[in-house]
């Protein structure tokens, strides 16, 4: 008897709690909604320049900041732009979804953020785009961005955008730093000219990766003519163990300089353990490999975020396909490790950076490399019929291959002489 009473009491309590929860639910949904609908007012309030505007921005991430690489780099961009725009009187209300997969959960995340009243939704991973495109038509008043992908120019939607940065420029500079180090070692008699071999840990044999390591190689070659390169693909954008193993295998194969297009710092530590040098990506890796890591390059996403979010705050349109590099500071170099870098590296980097910025130097200058012994004279950039073979827009003109010129996503997939692919099983 007593037991039954107690249970009845508990059940009653549960129901009361449930009711309270429902009641509370009503309140909580209304408050933020009420707060967030004000930006609509700011769009119309063209006269009030001084008033603070609030933009609700959704960000969908494939990882979280713990990766210390790809997503972490977006978070840095997010924090930087929040500060920059606050100074301009624009507040950003971020709604972030972490660890979303490249599947229908991405579609759900886009719907959820749209329903929460975001005015701009940023998808940070390549594979998010197809799922974003299923949601975008239902919310024409919301702007959708798919970073690093490429459908916005052909999807017939006005509210979809792509963005990328000319990371190959940064890779070229990292290559210059690596090349100078190797040339210095050759000049000092530490290695022979033939021993100047770079080992590159790549994620997949994908345009973005191929474009990156080719730029890196050309940068190194510009200051160390005898350099060659071996590329090992790991078949994952982020697999700390495999990346470390690949770097180790490259060191064993005689590489004396390691670089990477993958998300973790294990190639840097593997390089340090093997006593060779390293240049990184996404993040400054000097702290994990102080005796090995020369320099890193990364995209500063805050440049694009500022451009896009400010446009949304002011009710203006913005480019559907955005790609800039060092010209706008969207690609930056991390600090140079002066203790181990070759002498004069800083000055040389500054000089080359200025040439890239001014357009005097083309990274993919066709006079600097050959394909099967011959100069590259023609190469298409875009695939218009969906068969994944580029068929239109000649990318080679004015003596250079123009990367990220016709669309923001990289399309350089040529295998040039001097770079040996150890595997391409992931292509």
């Amino acid at each position, binding site marked *: 008897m007593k037991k*039954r009473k107690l*249970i009845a009491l*508990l*059940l009653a*309590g*549960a129901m009361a*709690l*449930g009711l*309270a*929860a*429902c*009641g*509370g*639910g*009503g*309140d*909580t*949904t209304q408050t*933020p909604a009420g707060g967030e609908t004000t930006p609509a007012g700011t769009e119309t309030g063209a006269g009030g320049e001084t008033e603070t505007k609030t933009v609700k921005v959704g960000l969908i991430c494939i990882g*979280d900041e713990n990766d210390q690489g790809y997503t972490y780099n977006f978070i840095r961009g997010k924090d930087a732009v929040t500060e920059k725009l606050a100074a301009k009187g624009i507040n950003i209300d971020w*709604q*972030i*979804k*972490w*660890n979303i*997969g*490249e*599947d*229908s*959960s991405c*579609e*759900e995340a886009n*719907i*959820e*953020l749209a*329903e*929460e009243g975001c005015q701009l939704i940023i998808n940070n991973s*390549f*594979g998010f785009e*197809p799922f974003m495109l*299923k949601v975008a038509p239902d919310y024409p008043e919301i702007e959708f961005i798919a970073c690093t992908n490429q459908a916005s120019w052909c999807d017939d939607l006005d509210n979809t955008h792509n963005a990328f940065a000319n990371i190959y420029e940064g890779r070229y500079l990292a290559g210059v730093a690596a090349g100078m180090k190797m040339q210095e070692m050759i000049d000092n008699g530490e290695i022979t000219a033939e021993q100047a071999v770079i080992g590159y840990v790549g994620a*997949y*044999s*994908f*345009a973005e*990766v*191929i474009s990156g390591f080719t730029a890196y190689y050309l940068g190194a070659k510009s200051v160390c003519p005898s350099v060659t390169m071996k590329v090992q693909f790991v*078949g994952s954008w982020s697999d700390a163990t495999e990346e470390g193993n690949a770097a180790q295998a490259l060191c064993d194969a005689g590489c004396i300089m390691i670089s990477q297009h993958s998300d973790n710092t294990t190639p840097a530590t593997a390089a340090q353990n093997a006593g060779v040098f390293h240049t990184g990506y996404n993040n400054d890796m000097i702290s994990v490999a102080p005796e090995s890591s020369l320099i890193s390059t990364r995209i500063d996403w805050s440049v694009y975020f500022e451009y896009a979010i400010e446009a949304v705050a002011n009710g203006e349109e913005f480019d559907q396909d955005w790609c800039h590099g060092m010209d706008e500071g969207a690609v930056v170099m991390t600090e140079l490790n002066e203790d181990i870098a070759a002498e004069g590296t800083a000055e040389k980097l500054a000089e080359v950076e200025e040439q890239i910025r001014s357009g005097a130097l083309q990274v993919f200058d066709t006079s600097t490399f050959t394909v099967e012994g011959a100069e590259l004279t023609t190469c298409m950039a875009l*695939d218009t019929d*969906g068969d*994944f073979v580029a068929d239109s827009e000649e990318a080679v003109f004015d003596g250079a291959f123009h990367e990220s010129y016709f669309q923001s996503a990289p399309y350089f*997939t040529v295998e040039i002489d001097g770079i040996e692919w150890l595997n391409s*099983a*992931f*292509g």
Partner: protein
Amino acid sequence: MHDPHSPLIRLAKRDAMPRGQVWAIRGASFVAAFLISALIFLLMGHSPVEAYGTMISGSLGKPTAIRQTVRIAIPLLGTALAIAPCFKMRFWNIGAEGQITAGAVGASYFALFWADKLPGPALLVVMAIAGAICGGLWGLVPAFFKAKWGTNETLFTLMMNYIMIGVVKWLQGGPWEGRPGSQIIPQFDSAAVLPKVLGVHCGWIIVLIMTVAMFVYMKYTKQGYEIAVIGESENTARYAGMNVGRIIMRTMFLSGAMAGLVGFIVASGADNTLHSGVAAGVGFTAITVAWLAQLNPFAMIAISMLLGILEKGADTLQTRLEVPASISDIITGIFLFCMLGCEFFINYRLILRGGHKEVAKQ
């Protein structure tokens, strides 16, 4: 006084409990889950009332939210139905994950390569049949080994999951890859996409039909009866002249075929493509659904919706209150733990040392 060797706490099987009491225990466990989760919210610095309110409004507050919740529940329900006959037979099929994936592969083959050769509705039917056959065959393999050589079906079905997921990874990076190097299979042609009914892909209708069919099959057919007899006692079944091996294989083919159908629904209706995570853990979560529903098909509808609400609600929680994603997982875990745990107390009772005279005497 009492036997010093008897343990402090002992378990004893309960006799059948009155229905009212059973439900009271279930209610109490739900309340317990509610309170423990509330404690977690408090520790995180959020009001539990606000948190629960967010979960409910996030999962059921708007038509779009309800649709999303239903989308989560569809594969859960379908897969729980698929594994129910196996579990009834006491054949531990934990390979639904692989059978879903196998079904998705079969359906995707036709979606990718036959979209221009078959008219729309026919294409979908062919995809569904291909999905069911592939899933069924994938389920048949461990059943065959079990029937012929008595292999352990738990390990066998589990391992088969990883093989199939590996196959899809290979397809993704190899023969079916879209843009070179992307590791992504292209989106299906619109003809290969399940049409929407009331804003949700019509997989929900398919799984509801499956629910009724499974209920009838288990309750009113000879095959359903055979499954129940084998579940109670294999020897009895043998004595009654049933071909146990054949029934095991037949049931596993059926189970795999239904999971394969779910694979088709997910690939065609939700993802519109094939990827290695197509099953997304549904094959395992569905085991929970099936158990909580005590293998009753209609109860599975409620349980899978409840899990859908928990998942979608937890998702909204993450967005609105900015709690880490792992907190949402913890809340879901607490609810499942309490709800499954209470079944234990319904079936067993705890006996403290010397607490029960009658038992102490034994």
